């Protein structure tokens, strides 16, 4: 392992290595700061380029963008009162109050430091945990892998925001779309729609994501014409180390960090849920609640620590099990797939350099982002003034060129355009895109392992329940789905009971 780490460090400290990490981290911060875009848009439009890049450099670039994007999200939240990313939604509540009171530096300094302290230990934990979990996971059979994929999909559906029926509907559609193309067991074509060979390779996930995210976002941004508030009048001074704020809220900080790491580990949740949970918990536990919502520094620390700790948490299932922890992990799996590398428990054994590049680049990107955000804090208002019209036109071109490059055919572009319409329709009907995406990416594995499990078993489906680990995953996934089904009913009843009690 020592040799591998030295090799990775040597690669990361070459000119291209450092360039990708620094450029990725800074681009992530900028896009994270701009409300409506986020670093995931950049990742999506860069996916087709992954075909042409060295896999290690590609992973270094991608993880740097993720780290930068997660950290940059707080800038828009604190200075404009508009979250740059969904993960920084709760930062707005208290962070923006500091700007209104004329002291944005205190909130920004606390956020930037919490980002750094949230990221670095979580990545270190992931580095250690992945080894152990992957070693255990390679001993599992087709039944367990199938059950794991089933569990991951249902967890995302059960824990996602919005209507459960609609999210499940998205999963059903994704399962069908993922079965278009060559059958993984018999190698015969399915759903070729009149023998069209273009469908043989299936629908490319890159085309789907370019349409579902990048193209759709630009389309809706233009349609809604939501001009961001002006940041011209905001002035930001130099970084002030928030030693007092952190020391005063140390226990809450640690609690938020653990919460972020754990929630990041659960498939499909990631930064947004981590920050909401951490913020709510600290709010509930606070002795003096009167300051919350009016500029409570712990609100900023909790949100920003948890969402960054979730990055390390999400890397654990991605690398150890091949299960994406959040939407950006789906993009990692896609990028790896474009280089012929399958994300599975064998990843760390077969491609250790790739895996350790992700970890080491994440640490370096965390440092780069922290340095930029501390030294360059006075430049934050300028980030929010970047002319949108130039940025959007470039994204459109990257998305459509990428749509062609993903399959090197106009069929890919056609899929991108259809996915764009699908994305708009999904938004219109309130269908969450994450369960759809998760099901689309996991269905090929789920189908292959399920059918292998059936074929390799004397008792048919019974083996899925008689093998303990497989049974645990199936039960866990089903329970989470049931929780998603029942929890709104319980919440409704509780609210009604509270209203009744208040009335009496």
């Amino acid at each position, binding site marked *: 392992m020592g040799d591998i780490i030295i090799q990775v460090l040597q690669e990361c400290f070459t000119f291209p290595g450092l360039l990708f990490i620094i450029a990725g981290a800074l681009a992530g911060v900028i896009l994270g700061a701009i409300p409506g875009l986020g670093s995931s848009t950049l990742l999506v439009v860069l996916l087709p380029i992954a075909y042409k890049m060295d896999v290690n450099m590609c992973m270094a670039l991608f993880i740097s963008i993720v780290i930068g994007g997660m950290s940059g999200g707080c800038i828009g939240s604190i200075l404009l009162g508009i979250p740059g990313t969904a993960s920084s939604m709760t930062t707005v509540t208290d962070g923006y109050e500091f700007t209104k009171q004329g002291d944005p530096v205190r909130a920004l300094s606390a956020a930037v430091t919490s980002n750094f302290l949230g990221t670095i230990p979580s990545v270190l934990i992931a580095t250690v945990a992945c080894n152990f979990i992957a070693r255990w996971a390679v001993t599992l059979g087709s039944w367990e892998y199938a059950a794991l994929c089933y569990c991951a999909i249902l967890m995302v559906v059960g824990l996602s925001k919005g*209507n459960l029926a609609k999210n499940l*509907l998205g999963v059903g559609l994704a399962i069908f779309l993922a079965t278009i193309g060559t059958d993984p067991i018999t190698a015969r074509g399915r759903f070729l729609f009149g023998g069209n060979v273009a469908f043989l390779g299936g629908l490319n996930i890159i085309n789907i994501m370019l349409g579902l995210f990048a193209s759709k976002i630009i389309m809706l941004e233009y349609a809604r014409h939501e001009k961001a508030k002006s940041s011209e009048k905001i002035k930001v001074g130099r970084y002030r180390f928030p030693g007092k704020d952190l020391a005063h809220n140390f226990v809450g900080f640690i609690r938020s960090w653990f919460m972020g790491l754990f929630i990041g580990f659960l498939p499909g949740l990631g930064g947004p849920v981590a920050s909401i949970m951490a913020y709510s918990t600290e709010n509930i536990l606070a002795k003096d609640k009167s300051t919350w919502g009016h500029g409570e520094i712990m609100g900023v620390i909790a949100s920003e620590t948890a969402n960054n700790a979730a990055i390390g948490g999400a890397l654990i299932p991605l690398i150890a099990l091949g299960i994406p922890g959040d939407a950006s992990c789906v993009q990692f799996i896609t990028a790896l797939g474009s280089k012929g590398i399958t994300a599975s428990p064998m990843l760390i054994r077969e491609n250790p350099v790739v895996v350790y590049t992700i970890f080491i680049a994440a640490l370096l990107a965390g440092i780069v982002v922290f340095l930029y955000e501390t030294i360059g804090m006075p430049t934050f208002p300028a980030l929010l003034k970047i002319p949108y019209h130039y940025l959007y*036109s470039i994204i*459109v071109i990257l998305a459509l060129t990428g749509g062609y490059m993903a399959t090197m055919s106009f069929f890919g572009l056609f899929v991108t355009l259809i996915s764009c319409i699908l994305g708009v329709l999904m938004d219109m009907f309130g269908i969450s895109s994450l369960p759809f995406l998760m099901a689309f990416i996991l269905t090929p594995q789920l189908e292959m392992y399920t059918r292998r499990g059936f074929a390799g078993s004397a008792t048919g489906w019974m083996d899925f329940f008689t093998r303990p680990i497989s049974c645990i995953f199936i039960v866990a996934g089903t329970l989470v789905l049931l929780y998603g089904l029942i929890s709104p009913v319980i919440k409704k009843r509780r609210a009604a009971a509270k209203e009744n009690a208040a009335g009496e």
Partner: protein
Amino acid sequence: MKIQNQKDRILGIASVLISLWIVMQTMALQVVEKRGDPGSRLFPLIGAAIMLICGLALIIKPGKESKQFLTKEQWKSAGIIFGVYCLCVILFWLVGFMIAVPVVLFIITLLFQGQSRPDDPMKKRVIRSLIYAVIAGAAIYVIYVIGLQADLPTGLLFG
């Protein structure tokens, strides 16, 4: 209440119809018998079953009212951008990447400038978009074709 109820019901009906179409398509698949393997039809049928059940659930019990997704004007604007996407695909096919990129960059930049800088005179916006389209188009061409050596469409007319 009406808007969302109707929307959810439409979604439910569409979902049921699509699921029935998937079932029909799936049943038309030729199955290769393999010992123990439940066959190629299993997963498409699972997808269809999920869509059917959820569709029926939405028809029977639609959700509550929600705010309007886009106004009529906003749908028009979205349609314009989608039209530009389609134009880009046609230009890729007809005249190739090198010409399509600056043309689409120009149109998108001009459209968004209309929103972000509405007070600027049209002439100024056009000139700015034109300069940007040429410079950014050249940069993208260098990155993709020379840097990444990507094999991009040269166009029916020039290929």
